[in-house]
């Protein structure tokens, strides 16, 4: 009897913990600072006109895995924002993309806090990603990092891959606060094709932070030149409640939308935008330019917004670069909704440095 028990327990133990071992635990990150001159003019009212040392998405991260068996791994990632200019406050060590999950031949399933699949679908088309006045988030809604996200990515299917994420609603479920309290009130998904010189992606958000969005992105590389393009349409998922377009975008257009709503009850219901970007590598120098045109409208009127950024990187090594840039964002006046002058934001990056590790 005892011998049978020992044999059975040995068999069970081997099944439960078959050859599990911890893989490497890796630290990574980047530190990025830029000395910038910022001007914010909102219909003739100067909101800001000064110099600042800014940091663009500096971070510290840890990643690792445990091999459970030959076909299953536990994976994890913890990433935190760091603010090396010393003005972090609440932003210091704020969680960025972080998760824990399982990876196998079925794909990868994780849960935590992460950029939505729609945001991921931009690829590298945003050539000024994370720049304070260059990022597309200052013109185009949908650039979300969501809490409470459960995300699944398919295994690679040749050049195709897909990602699906669900997030619960934000309501508590108590009486009067139970409109969005279900298992998957918010859904985000993408389908990406990446092969050699071609990148193409479709991204969709359903009621993510109050918006329904569809986004098409493409990029093509010819030698040292990469051209990118994006088209997006978004609409408020429920005008009677929740967050609207003004809550999902930053920059001059966000201020204009908020002021218009305050002054004249103007609420944007729909949004369209397109983006063109180009990146040209010449030896150690990378020249970049990006233009975005977006329109926020309802049935009666609209606000037009344009964003233009140019810049250059000087590559010192694979991990270190110097860079300069200039950004200009204009949300155009519309006196019918109380916007009596253009809202203009400009940013000149005199010199920036980034080091990755």
């Amino acid at each position: 009897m005892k011998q049978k028990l020992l044999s059975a327990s040995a068999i069970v133990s081997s099944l439960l913990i078959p050859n599990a071992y911890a893989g490497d635990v890796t630290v990574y990150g980047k530190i990025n600072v830029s000395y910038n001159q910022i001007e914010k003019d909102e219909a003739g009212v100067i909101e800001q006109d000064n110099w600042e040392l800014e940091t663009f998405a500096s971070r510290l991260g840890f990643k690792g895995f445990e091999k459970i068996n030959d076909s299953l791994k536990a994976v994890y990632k913890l990433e935190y924002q760091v603010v090396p200019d010393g003005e972090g406050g609440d932003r210091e060590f704020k969680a960025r993309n972080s998760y824990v999950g399982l990876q196998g031949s079925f794909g990868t399933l994780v849960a935590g806090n992460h950029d939505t699949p729609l945001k991921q679908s931009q690829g590298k088309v945003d050539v000024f990603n994370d720049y304070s006045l260059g990022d597309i988030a200052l013109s185009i809604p949908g650039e979300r990092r969501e809490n409470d996200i459960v995300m699944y990515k398919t295994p690679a299917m040749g050049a195709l891959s897909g990602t699906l994420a669900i997030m619960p609603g934000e309501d508590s479920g108590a009486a009067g606060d139970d409109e969005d309290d279900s298992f998957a009130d918010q859904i985000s998904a993408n389908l990406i094709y990446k092969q050699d010189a071609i990148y193409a992606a479709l991204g969709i958000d359903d009621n993510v932070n109050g918006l329904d969005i569809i986004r098409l992105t493409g990029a093509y590389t010819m030698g040292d030149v990469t051209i990118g393009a994006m088209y997006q349409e978004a609409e408020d998922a429920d005008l009677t409640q929740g967050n609207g377009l003004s809550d999902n975008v930053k920059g001059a257009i966000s201020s204009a939308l908020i002021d218009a709503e305050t002054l004249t009850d103007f609420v944007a219901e729909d949004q369209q935008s397109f983006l063109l970007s180009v990146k040209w590598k010449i030896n150690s120098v990378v020249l970049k330019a990006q233009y975005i045109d977006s329109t926020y409208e309802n049935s009666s009127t609209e606000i037009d917004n344009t964003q233009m950024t140019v810049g250059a990187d000087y590559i010192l090594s694979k991990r270190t670069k110097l860079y300069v840039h200039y950004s200009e964002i204009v949300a155009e006046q519309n006196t019918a909704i109380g916007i009596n002058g253009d809202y203009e934001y400009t940013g000149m990056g005199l010199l920036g440095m980034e080091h990755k590790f």
Partner: protein
Amino acid sequence: MKRFLTILVASTITGLCPIAYGDDEMAVDSADDFNPESFHKSKPSEIKVFDSASGKFFSRGVDVDADVADSKEQAVKKVYLEQDRPKNSDHAPSTTTLTAPSPASSTALTNAASTSITVEALDVFDNTEYPVDTGKRYEIRTRYTLKPGNSASLSADAATDIMHGKMAQQCPQGWEKQREWSLPVEGDYYLHYQFECL
């Protein structure tokens, strides 16, 4: 929490000095994407808080040597894992104490030509016997000094003896040396051999 992270960052960055990286995209560049299959693969160029190969914490990162071969048809980029000197070594101890992982692989890159050669870096002080792979190219290196009064490092003759001993161990049927070169390091030199088993 903040103090712990600060101490952790200071210790990892000051204790680990990866000099350069291979061709793989850096983890930080792909961190915002969600490509977990490649993101969670171990890469020799990364800073490791825990190195599963050696079982050590805060193990030193990878010292990357980039070297272009004389031949116009091929360029070689090698990745070495730093080596521990065994405590019972008959030779003078190195001034550098490092980890001794299993052999690392490196990839030779070509220019416009489509041919490529895989070069496997071996630890000259690793006595593990690996299967002989005829035609496979290996690379080994040993540090030596040309300064007569420097007893902390091997002489060129002693380094050559060690290198020949390793080639004999790896290729008991004989070998053909493909390349030999030296690179300066901290006042000494690294003697490199590339060879193939016959």
